[in-house]
């Protein structure tokens, strides 16, 4: 059993999902990085490709790296399963989960996810005007990879809501936060990779995203707190916990705030359940609405999602759906092909800035609550609370980002065409591309499996449901769009040049 009273700064490094996202992310990042010395050690990962029409299903899955072509689709899938099963089972064992239950659940979720991923790459769903002729089609839905994301979520929701016993069994392996945090570490590779092509743009995106932090903490939180207290007359602690959940970063913010204001855990549980369900609703409805209305401001749309959609999983997932929908709509509109990943990055970068300061915000709230509101005699607030609440996966994200930036700016002297940069890209591409999307897909399936809409009807959320609805759609989303426009307007997604 963990020694709770003698917790050090490094405690939890082998036992928390947050840290295991870092280890899982860095393990494959380092394998990929070895390509600068020659070998491609990550090209085995199975990559779905569009199929259908004149292109056979056998072309729907292949190894990401040319060096692994001989593996074929099944060999590549098996190797991918073997690598990630071993890696995640080690994590499950270290975190003291039921490894047997995890293994069975993981195996089901892994193969279900790949089946959905491949099937929904059928050209009818995924092709757009620039490539549908290749499949002999006159028309397609132009959803790109977005069809797979939406289908994974939908099938996960069917399991979570209609096969509850099975969903409960799978819950040991359905870990959307672990999966998405791992995907975000891989996204760091993507951002570093993108910086090799457009360093100035990435820097601008990062700085503009930082502004969102101010908005979330100083505009959203007080506004939502006032709505909860003045209009809906909720108790002070419940209002504070709910405000953090709705306006900052979902469940993690709600838990941090509940701890800061010394709320009973039942408040955390109720607010968290509400957030998870609302996050799925946001994830489903906001990307199509933004795609229909904001095609001239794609980065504003992505950044606004980062401010509006709560929980890292739902935000990154919504960003990925928006990325696919907008790029394919753009191609359908005028044949322009936007580069993949920029819209997702704008959504995630905004959220990561917000995540990083939750520990500081909870510390400030704890000071206010302990010294000004509750005034309990003799109680102090330990400074170490900031570190305990710091999201550790962010370290992995920045590490992988800066590692590739270091290769470009220092080792290659800023020359994007240097041989070492080309070699680094060989190992970076499967990690930032296929592995990142695989963990996005696993996140979508898992979010669906653990989301039970009946909780909304069963639990006594009462007025909290209405506070959430009013604050989100009448206050937060409009303000997020305005702030996103102020800081990101005019930024356009780079166009594919080759």
């Amino acid at each position: 059993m963990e020694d709770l009273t003698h917790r050090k700064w490094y405690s939890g490094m082998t036992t928390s999902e947050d840290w295991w996202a870092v280890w899982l992310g860095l393990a494959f990042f380092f394998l990929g990085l070895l390509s600068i010395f020659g070998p491609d050690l990550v090209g085995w990962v199975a990559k779905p490709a569009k199929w259908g029409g004149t292109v056979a299903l056998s072309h729907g899955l292949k190894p990401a790296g040319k060096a692994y072509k001989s593996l074929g689709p099944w060999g590549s899938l098996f190797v991918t399963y073997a690598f990630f099963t071993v890696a995640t089972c080690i994590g499950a064992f270290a975190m003291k989960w039921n490894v047997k239950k995890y293994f069975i659940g993981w195996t089901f979720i892994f193969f279900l996810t790949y089946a959905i991923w491949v099937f929904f790459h059928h050209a009818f769903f995924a092709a757009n005007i620039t490539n549908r002729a290749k499949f002999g089609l006159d028309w397609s839905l132009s959803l790109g990879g977005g069809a797979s994301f939406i289908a994974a979520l939908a099938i996960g929701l069917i399991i979570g809501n209609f096969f509850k016993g099975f969903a409960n069994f799978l819950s040991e392996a359905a870990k959307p936060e672990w999966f998405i945090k791992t995907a975000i570490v891989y996204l760091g590779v993507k951002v570093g990779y993108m910086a090799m092509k457009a360093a100035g743009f990435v820097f601008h995106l990062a700085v503009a995203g930082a502004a969102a932090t101010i908005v979330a903490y100083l505009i959203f939180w007080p506004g939502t707190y006032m709505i909860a207290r003045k209009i809906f007359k909720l108790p002070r602690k419940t209002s504070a916990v709910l405000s953090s959940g709705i306006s900052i970063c979902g469940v993690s913010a709600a838990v941090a705030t509940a701890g800061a204001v010394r709320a009973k855990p039942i408040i955390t549980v109720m607010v968290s359940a509400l957030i998870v369900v609302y996050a799925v609703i946001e994830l489903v409805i906001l990307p199509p609405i933004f795609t229909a209305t904001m095609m001239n401001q794609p980065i504003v749309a992505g950044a606004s999602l980062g401010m509006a959609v709560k929980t890292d999983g739902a935000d990154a997932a919504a960003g990925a759906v928006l990325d696919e929908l907008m790029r394919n709509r753009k191609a359908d509109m005028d044949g322009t092909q936007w580069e993949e990943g920029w819209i997702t990055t704008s959504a995630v970068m905004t959220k990561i800035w917000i995540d990083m300061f939750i520990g500081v915000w909870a510390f400030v709230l704890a000071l206010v609550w302990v010294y000004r509101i509750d005034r309990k005699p003799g109680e102090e607030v330990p400074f170490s609370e900031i570190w305990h609440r710091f999201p550790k996966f962010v370290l992995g994200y920045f590490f992988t980002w800066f590692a590739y930036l270091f290769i470009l700016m220092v080792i290659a002297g800023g020359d994007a065409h240097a041989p070492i940069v080309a070699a680094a890209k060989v190992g970076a591409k499967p990690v930032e591309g296929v592995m990142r999307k695989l963990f996005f897909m696993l996140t979508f399936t898992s979010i669906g499996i653990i989301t039970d809409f009946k909780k909304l009807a069963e639990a006594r959320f009462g007025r909290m449901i209405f506070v959430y609805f009013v604050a989100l759609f009448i206050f937060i989303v409009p303000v997020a769009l305005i702030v996103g426009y102020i800081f990101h307007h005019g930024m356009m997604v780079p166009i594919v040049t080759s």
Partner: protein
Amino acid sequence: MIEFTLIHDGKDWIAENPQIRVAASTLEELDRCIKASLIREGAIQPGEVKKVFMAFDNATIPQWIRQYAPHYFNRVLKVTLALPDGTITET
């Protein structure tokens, strides 16, 4: 420093270490019970100030929520037992 593990069982806050176990419905009441227990056990003497550290056991939080945030909160409490003349010594 005197250390406790802190949990909430759905009704009461419970602070526990190998020697002492106290439960109360509010944290204010819990703090009073802890002070009374420390005096009863002789863990604090007149004129002393003792620091009490309470580490929240996250097992109280359902597992599906723990993936979002692995830490709830820890508390530090200064317990004072003054001498009859009002003087104290920090230890």
